């Protein structure tokens, strides 16, 4: 089954590092990856995309993460028109921004990658994102820390947030988001971790790495379709 690594951060200033990351991903057997170029997202044009795609045989999708300072800043950043299909995620510990992002249909993912940010997730944000068919993302990178005490705290936070999203039937997305290339793992291995240590059933975990990611990509491509009106509503041309 084609699982997804939903977040692979790339330093676009260093193509050698990107190449190394892709080589490890290919060795691991990862087939689909969503990459997030660090830095200025406005540069995420055709040229850069082609350059990144030429480095690997994997299916590559693109995302950008916005870290707005306040609600107005969020609105300003969202109004910048993006011409190419890009997954848009918001990462912030400020609740007002999270709520605004969950209400906005242009936001695809509300990310809770950092353990400090995870603490700020409320049932209201999950409920709003569910209504809007957007996704709540958590990242497993925090579980790779060496310090045992910190690691157990991070596990506790991951456990709490996963079960909160699950109990409210939110759209959960789980990503690796590993900084070090030797921390990268195949999504199937991450599914086992979610099952054994975080108490998710295998089916639920698989959904977060496969089905939900596919839905997210479909949602993004629909938005760039000129016939698309709203989620579930689309113009159909005669004969289609």
């Amino acid at each position, binding site marked *: 089954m084609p699982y997804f690594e939903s977040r692979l951060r790339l330093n676009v200033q260093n193509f050698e590092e990107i190449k190394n990351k892709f080589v490890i991903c290919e060795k691991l057997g990862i087939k689909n990856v969503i990459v997030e170029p660090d830095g200025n997202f406005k540069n995420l044009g055709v040229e850069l995309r082609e350059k990144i795609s030429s480095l690997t045989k994997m299916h590559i999708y693109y995302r950008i993460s916005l870290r707005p300072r306040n609600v107005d800043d969020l609105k300003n950043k969202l109004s910048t028109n993006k011409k190419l299909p890009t997954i848009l995620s918001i990462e912030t510990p400020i609740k007002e921004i999270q709520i605004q992002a969950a209400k906005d249909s242009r936001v695809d993912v509300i990310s809770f990658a950092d353990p400090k940010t995870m603490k700020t997730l409320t049932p209201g944000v999950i409920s709003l994102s569910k209504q809007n068919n957007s996704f709540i993302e958590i990242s497993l990178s925090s579980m790779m820390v060496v310090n045992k005490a910190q690691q157990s705290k991070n596990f506790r936070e991951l456990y709490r947030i996963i079960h909160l999203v699950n109990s409210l039937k939110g759209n959960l997305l789980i990503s690796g988001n590993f900084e070090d290339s030797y921390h990268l793992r195949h999504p*199937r*291995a991450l599914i*086992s971790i979610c099952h054994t*240590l975080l108490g998710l059933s295998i089916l639920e975990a698989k959904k977060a790495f496969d089905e939900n990611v596919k839905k997210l990509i479909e949602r993004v491509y629909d938005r760039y379709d000129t016939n698309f009106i709203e989620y579930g509503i689309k113009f159909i041309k005669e004969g289609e």
Partner: protein
Amino acid sequence: MNIVRNERNRYILFKIINEGFISIEHSDILKSIWKSIWRFFGMKEANKIGLWVIEIDLENEYGIIRCAHQTKEIIITALSFITEINGNKIILSPVKTSGTIKSIKNYMISKKNLN
């Protein structure tokens, strides 16, 4: 009368990914797996595992281990948490699990032929 088998075996094929040439023994890998099992699962799960190293080929970068079928996910998790052995960065990435060693070997042959 059917024989009810309570415990079946699972064979796990894993890939060894490392930074170039590193000198590690088979025992180092086994020790790391046990260390990882103890760290994340403790005695409660460790006594159910029945871990056995079938083969470790550092040259061709793969290994095969055997465990009880109920503890397959635990072993995959334990393998995933190993990030270094003797100070060398390493990834032990599970590739395939099977109930028989024969199908693992067949899988390896088919993969080799594909490459």
